[in-house]
């Protein structure tokens, strides 16, 4: 477990920035009320075995008592660094993204299941969409009852979506909460909460 260096921090922030925009500031400066300290601490990013965790500093302090090899997971896993040095977000960071999302998409109840099986979001399944999405922006996908289902990348801008074929892809799938069941063995870490 170690702090990210500058290059890694840039990679992580840039990825999250795509989803949250300037709300990234809220994530970084979020006060934490964990641990015995009376004053609220901060959250920080820690790298452990290729994975990046979003942890409160009081938890980091306590986690230093655990040997590096024995430490399976701490806090929330935000994503991981690939062999090539790229950063990928994982589904565990969904709550963090959903709370601060800039671009959102709501799915009709009929197309929820399709998305939860790792399919892209089609125009036909689109319930609502926020304004001013540009292609390539990160989008958080919600159900109509405002339950975050996953996230992806916008394939079309909001304006283009209006006059689109119902079979056209609007959001490219990146992660969804169905992964907790589908890839249970790949997610070794225990789901939080």
């Amino acid at each position, binding site marked *: *477990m*170690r702090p990210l*260096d*500058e290059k890694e921090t840039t990679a992580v922030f*840039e990825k999250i*920035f795509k989803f949250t925009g300037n709300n*990234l500031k809220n994530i*970084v400066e979020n006060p934490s009320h964990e641990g015995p300290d009376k004053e609220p601490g901060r959250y920080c990013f820690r790298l452990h075995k290729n994975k990046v965790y979003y942890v409160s500093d009081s938890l980091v302090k306590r986690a*230093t008592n655990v040997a590096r090899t024995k430490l399976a997971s701490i806090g929330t896993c935000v994503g991981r660094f690939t062999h090539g040095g790229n950063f990928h977000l994982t589904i565990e960071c969904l709550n963090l993204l959903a709370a601060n999302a800039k671009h959102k998409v709501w799915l009709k109840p009929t197309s929820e299941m399709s998305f939860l099986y790792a399919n892209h979001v089609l125009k036909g399944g689109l319930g609502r969409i926020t304004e001013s999405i540009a292609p390539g922006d990160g989008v958080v996908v919600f159900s109509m009852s405002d339950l975050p289902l996953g996230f992806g990348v916008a394939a079309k801008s909001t304006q283009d979506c209006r006059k689109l074929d119902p079979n056209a892809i609007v959001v490219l799938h990146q992660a969804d909460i169905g992964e907790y069941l589908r890839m249970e063995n790949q997610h070794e870490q225990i789901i939080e909460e």
Partner: protein
Amino acid sequence: MEMETETQKPFQVDMGNLLAFNPFHNFPSLPTSRDELVKECIQEGTKLVQAIADSIFNLPSTEDADGPLVKLPTPTTKLPREKHLPKPKPPTKWEEFAKKKGIKKRKKDKVVWDEQTGTWKRRFGYDRVNDDKDIPIIEAKMTDEPGVDPFAKRQDDKKKRVEKQEKNHLQNLKQAAKIGALPSHVQLAATALPITGTQAPPKKVTKDELGNVAGMAATSTASGGKFDRKLPGEKPAKKQGKHRKFLPVVEGLGIGSREKEQTENVLNKLISKHSHEILNAVTMYNVKKEKKARNKRNQEGKSSSATNKLKPKKQLHKKNGKKGPGSSKKGKAK
């Protein structure tokens, strides 16, 4: 056919080697400069190649998918051997001994009748006659020492015999290597055999390796090569040892000030990099609209308050200034 000598084309053509030469060529006058000589030679060479090409097309050909195929006749010119003739191998120890004793080689059958199993078996190798596996009982003799396993002894003896033969074989190869008459197949593996006395051939050192070693040597002083006088043309060490240093995991009360600073820096850089995106077309429009509305409001409320007096005036001036050139431009364009 192969050696065709004609009066017009006095070339000797050997089709088997695709070779042609002109034994009767004479320079009418020896060329003075080298360039002329080269020119002359190329001219003569062209004629010879042409002669070869002509005779190829005279040969009977078969049609193929790629074009006509011609079978070349056997070559007539005898070309010299590339490598010298192999030297005769010196006689081995056994060959010398056999010559002295007058022992001659006898042909032996490859297969022998095995009485134990009642089948024909190979004389040597796998599944051979008198194989250790096939002997269930060894009769005790008077000379046997007590406490010695006869089966283990048999195996041990065999191993020793093989080892001895290997030693003799190497000794013979060593003798042959001294004279330089190693057979070619052994020569290839000679560096691995303990007969030549030399180890693997020295590797050629590449430029990169030399550079790396030189860099290492230059920085192997107490000061890390900082105060050493540089040789003319010496470049800085190519491979700098990379010591990655990370911020501490925990510093003081939780998150450290340096880490805070770093995240802050990255965040600010990121936000300023993307700040232009905020002013996209829609918001620009909105901002302009707001400005206009504000201006109007200010103009209307100009006389109402004393504090607002200065501001609208200023903006009016600005507006006029801006509008002036804009309108004139429009007029020009029209």
